């Protein structure tokens, strides 16, 4: 399969190039931020000599380009640098945070993706009838309400009034999986509601598009039931657009959870990032930015690869 291989290699190379470009943008972006790192570390009362010393120490007087390559060189070896404020190794403290964020995103995806696709199939099966309209209305309503508001509403009713789930989602390594899951039940619910509508509507649209095809008529004339026609004959041909949207939303689950993590005081990347942005801790912000970008680019690359692989013409050339 030389053509297939060529396409895949091209796509992966493009992803890496994109990541490199983004790293440059992040570095440049954090450098033009207003404010002075030295000043924010030492506070308003610092003497000019102390500021100059710490700048020298942090290497802030070096030209930007050489600092960029130093930083990039470290990245390639897995060294994200040290946090300015705490002096800790960023990779180490980020590691457990990232693990927690991925844990939350994973379980949100496990709930949201199959649910969205199933609801999409259901909406197609009963298109233009009340189940379709109900699904559309509910999912659209849930995406339209800001996620922090959904968070607080769920917290108040499900957490406080009914007492079904904890309102604060603290997790640590000593907890069992069951305890962890029960702890993140509410943020998972919020995230699911946020990403559901987009994936559901894309599934519906992609499948409806395929439903116009002649082979759907063939399937109907074979005496298959409507749901069999949709699931067996329409879905396999709508994989590419659906996977694209699913991946975009998975990326959002990792990158966009900042607000939800803060609302539920969940010890993930989002909180870590927000903390350090307010402290103007540039190396940490850069590291977080790069990881978010890598997740985004990586998942979209996976979506493209799946789309390429889902095409039988590329998978089985003549």
């Amino acid at each position, binding site marked *: 399969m030389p053509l297939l291989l060529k396409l895949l290699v091209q796509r992966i190379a493009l992803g890496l190039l994109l990541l490199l470009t983004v790293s440059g943008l992040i570095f440049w972006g954090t450098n033009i931020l207003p404010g002075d790192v030295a000043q924010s570390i030492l506070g308003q009362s610092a003497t000019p000599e102390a500021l100059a010393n710490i700048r020298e120490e942090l290497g802030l007087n070096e030209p930007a380009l050489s600092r960029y390559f130093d930083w990039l060189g470290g990245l390639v070896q897995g060294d994200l640098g040290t946090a300015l404020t705490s002096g800790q190794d960023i990779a180490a403290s980020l590691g457990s945070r990232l693990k927690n964020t991925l844990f939350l995103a994973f379980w949100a995806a496990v709930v949201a993706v199959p649910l969205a696709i199933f609801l999409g199939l259901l909406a197609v099966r009963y298109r233009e009838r009340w189940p379709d309209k109900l699904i559309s209305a509910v999912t659209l309503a849930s995406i339209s309400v800001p996620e922090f508001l959904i968070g607080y509403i769920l917290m108040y009713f499900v957490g406080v009034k009914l007492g079904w789930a904890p309102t604060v989602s603290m997790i640590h390594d000593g907890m069992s999986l069951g305890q962890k899951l029960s702890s993140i039940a509410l943020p998972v619910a919020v995230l699911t509601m946020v990403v559901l509508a987009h994936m559901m509507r894309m599934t519906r649209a992609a499948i409806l598009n395929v439903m116009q095809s002649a082979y759907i008529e063939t399937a109907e004339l074979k*005496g*298959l039931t409507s749901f069999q026609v949709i699931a067996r004959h329409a879905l*396999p*041909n709508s994989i590419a657009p659906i996977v694209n949207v699913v991946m975009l939303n998975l990326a959002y689950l990792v990158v966009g959870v900042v607000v939800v993590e803060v609302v539920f005081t969940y010890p993930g990347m989002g909180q870590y990032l927000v903390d350090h942005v307010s402290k103007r801790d540039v190396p940490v912000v850069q590291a977080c930015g790069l990881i978010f970008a890598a997740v985004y680019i990586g998942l979209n690359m996976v979506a493209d690869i799946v789309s390429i692989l889902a095409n*039988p013409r590329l998978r*089985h050339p003549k």
Partner: protein
Amino acid sequence: MSDALLKVRDLKIGARVYPPGEKPRDIDIVHGVSFDLEKGKVLGLIGESGAGKSTIGLATMAYGRGGVEITGGEVWVNGREILGTSLKDLRKLRGTEVTYVSQSAAASFNPAKKIMEQVIEASIHASKFSKKDAEARAIDLFTRLGLPDPETIGDRYPHQVSGGQLQRCMTALALCPEPDLVVFDEPTTALDVTTQIDVLMAIKKAIRDTGVAALYITHDLAVVAQVSDEIMVLRMGDMVEHGTTDQIINAPKEEYTSDLVSVRSRKHEGKPPSDNPVLTIEHVTARYKGTNFDVLHDVSMELHAGQTLAVVGESGSGKSTTARVMTGLLPARDGQIVFEDRVLSADLKGRARDDLREIQMIYQMADVAMNPRQTVGTIIGRPLEFYFGMRGAEKHKRIDELLDDIEMGAEFKDRYPAELSGGQKQRVCIARALAAKPKIIICDEVTSALDPLVAEDILKLLHNLQKREQVAYLFITHDLATVRAIADSIAVMYQGRVVRYGTKAEVLSPPFDDYTDLLLSSVPEMRLGWLEEVVEHRKMESAGN
């Protein structure tokens, strides 16, 4: 009569249409059609588009395509009335008792699934056969239908087999569950004439071997004459005539039927070529961008003022590519195009506007060759502005003249393409080409998408316009009947080469080369037993070799 497999009584079918800017309204497609079909018999349904053929065919499965609805009458299959039954019972009938073969197998096979899986799906769904038995049956059918590698062809995906093979796979799909009735809906229309003959024979043999009854739907009377026992002629949802195949072909009672029978008999005396051609293509070789093989090899031909050069061949033979090279859309790699003694730039971009004006095109799909949001007046007026700078009253006068030329009249000026019939759309495209006052018009399969009687009128119009304007036509077609009706010279193309070239009389008289012989003998003739004769003849020839 009572033991008929299929009984259709006073079948009425309607649909709701949504004309733009108007209220939806209901129209009738079929007004009360009745017929019987006995076990093992084949009934041909014939008529132009809009006659209701496919709609009737699908009604035997109680299926309405799109917004089509069966509004009245009865359909009895195996002694059961099916229009009143539940969807659940219908599903038991569809795909097992009655099956369907569509015009385009390429579109009707799911591109994401293997052929075998799709061929046996209905049998397994209905629990008629086990997976193993169904597969064995499918392989048996693949063998009978003359498919290559019957054991393994089912493991391929639809895009991995040719159009003719896929159409046979579709027949296998329909026959696999041992149905009582198969509806063949134009199963060979989309195929090349040389492929059609094999598929036609395979279908006929399969029908005979399995003893299945069939409805054979087509617009081509010569084709249906080969496979059916009886023929029913339909027109605009009404039955015109119903009789044995012999009676319909040889002694049609109705005028409309005799029109259909005689439509192919149009003759045209070919003119000899003049001394100086208006355009010559000299030793042209071409390939598409990004590929590394030539699609045209050393192609040469001449166009003469007031004459028609027909380019014939099957799909992929390079007919349309030759036209693209002529217009400069695809620059030739080698060779040249000479127009009135000067060499034209190979690339479109290197040609002067006046050179572009001299070569105009008319396409197969008039539908997509026009901007749906422009009126007929705007469409025809555009070349007048572009090439001659015409404005205002002068332009409108010319548009009116052109509309007269295509026998439509000025009242069509404000209509949109969607408000025209297929034939009228093609006429507008002809007017648009004529508006540029070209010396050459390339007609690319301009009648292929039209019904025979409409196509006949378009050919007449083209012929009359040629006599008056002395324009040269490059007429691309796969239909040899059309060639006979319009050509002065003929170029036969095969795999990117011109295999035979000359005046019509030369090309169509023996001795033939192998490919031209195959092509000519594959054109269905409107007489009974033609198919068997040809197949028998070929068998003997190959045995002789």
